[in-house]
């Protein structure tokens, strides 16, 4: 009898121990969000004295977002020499929103897209380069990585 008890106990433990891991789609059982997603398309090359168009393609739950509540673009240069403040982007259909600007000066740029639709608000920002980087911009970029590299060492 004792043996049987032992065996059945061990059996129950192995079930209890093995049964317990979180199921993959467990998030489906709780409140879920369908966040807005944005793809920001920067022109592959910039030429002087022409307006270049930046695009944002908005999707939500895999569907293109038409008539978004708002889509604003904010563009600036890292060295502070240029700043286009928030401007409404133009809707081109099929989830695409665009803004055209002059990018005559070379350097490191940033764009931040402020977009909202159905309670989901996003503000992704992207870094891009027009022409060549100046030395100070290169240095700025490298400082960022130095900090990160140090922090990773300590993290492990």
């Amino acid at each position, binding site marked *: *009898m*004792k043996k049987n*008890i*032992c065996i059945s*106990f*061990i059996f*129950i*433990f192995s079930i*209890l121990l093995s*049964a*317990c*891991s*979180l*199921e993959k789609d*467990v*998030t489906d*059982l*709780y*409140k*879920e*969000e369908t*966040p*807005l*997603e*944005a793809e*920001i398309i*920067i022109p592959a090359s910039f030429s002087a004295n022409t307006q270049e168009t930046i695009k944002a393609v908005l999707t939500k739950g895999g569907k293109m977002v038409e008539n978004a509540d708002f889509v604003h673009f904010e563009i600036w240069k890292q060295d502070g020499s240029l700043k286009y403040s928030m401007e409404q982007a133009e809707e081109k259909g099929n989830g695409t929103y665009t803004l055209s600007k002059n990018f005559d000066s070379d350097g490191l740029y*940033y764009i931040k897209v402020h977009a909202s639709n159905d309670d*989901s*608000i*996003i*503000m*992704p*920002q*992207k*870094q*891009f*380069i027009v022409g060549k*980087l100046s030395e100070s911009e*290169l*240095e700025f*970029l*490298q400082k*960022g*990585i130095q*900090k*990160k590299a*140090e*922090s990773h060492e*300590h*993290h492990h």
Partner: protein
Amino acid sequence: METKQPNTSLYRTVWRWHFYAGIIFAPLLIILAVTGSIYLFKPQIEQFLYQDYQAVTPQGDRLPASQQIENVKELYPDAVVTKYHPGENASRSSEVSITSNKESLTIFMDPYTGKSIGELNDEDRIMDKIEEIHGELMAGTLGDRIVELAACWAVVLIVSGLYLWYPKKNQSLSGVLFPRLKKGKHIFRRDLHAVPAFWITAGMLFLIMTGLPWSGFWGNNFQLLATNSGSGYPPSIWTGSAPTSSIKTKDIADVPWAAENLDVPLSDIQGFIPLSIDDVVTIANREDMHPSYSINIPQETEGVYTLSAFPAKAQDEATIHIDQYSGAVLADYRYDHYGLIGKIVAWGITLHKGTQFGLINQIISLLICLGIMFVACSGFYLWWKRKPKKSLGAPKAPQIKNIKLFLFLLIGLGILFPLVGLSLIVVWLIDWLIIKKISAVKNFLNA
């Protein structure tokens, strides 16, 4: 024995188990009750200990979080910033958590001047030490399992104790609800244990059952089952990982390594960059986070910013995960989104910690803790006084096979609390392989 006790084998068996479990686990229960009593008053104690770090004089506008963190980075150049906690009101400092030289520090910042008020090594937080003793006897996983075992066996003590206490026929309320003062030392000693024990039973069971869900083995598995069933905490609050950003790694901006030349293609430098923490603070305010929230700062490219608030009251709890590149809310779990079991556990935790109802909650819990200490001590005293000189004084062991009901109860508890089951197997093995085979031990233990 002068007291008349029913001499059935069931009564003796229960008594024997209560006796051994009591002797082994009473010291642990005393440790838990003492540390618990102190930890209950954590808010007041920390308020007193760290008032110099926490109080600031409001003057003008607060500096943005990013500026405060930048100042901390200047003071601790090789530190990793892991967490930011804005002060919950205008006269509270903000706290920046960092890890530096493998130590976890909290830097208290004056948000108005941007100056550091002081640093606190997490190792030096006295309440964290108390919590460590309470939760794992400062012995890591092994300690955690021992505490859990003590808690589970305390349930066995309660059940067996109630059986022993249960009034016999024609017994008046004295000796049941009140101690008998004039019936001699033996009876008074018994009543000194059994009567208060009955009075604190409900409270003790409550503290055990609300404490168990945070234990490492039973608690973790319980939480997993609850979360998997859809009625527990949503994933990532207790078990499971946070959602990840939908942005692909290749779309994230890389940074050049070497100073002289670009050693990564230009196209890799272009890409998404993480949001500033100021944007995250803006999102927290927009989403109406409880003011006691903290922001966990992602350390990996695929990580998320996590806002979390676990204030005094369970119904104010909130956890929000934010995509570090787009600022999208990937998950927003409030108390209302917990499943039923999750809500019960959340309430259990705040009641157990004594924060849910403030001072009155703390006082009631303190009384239960004092009761546990008293009952554990009086039980020990009862045994010490009754103990014969040359043996342990355990009640005689009947053949356990003859007591089916008790056996099933034990097996039931062993299944519900696998650690109890595991310890039962160990007890049986010791009994079977050692005690029964060596007559000196057998006599000493009265087996």
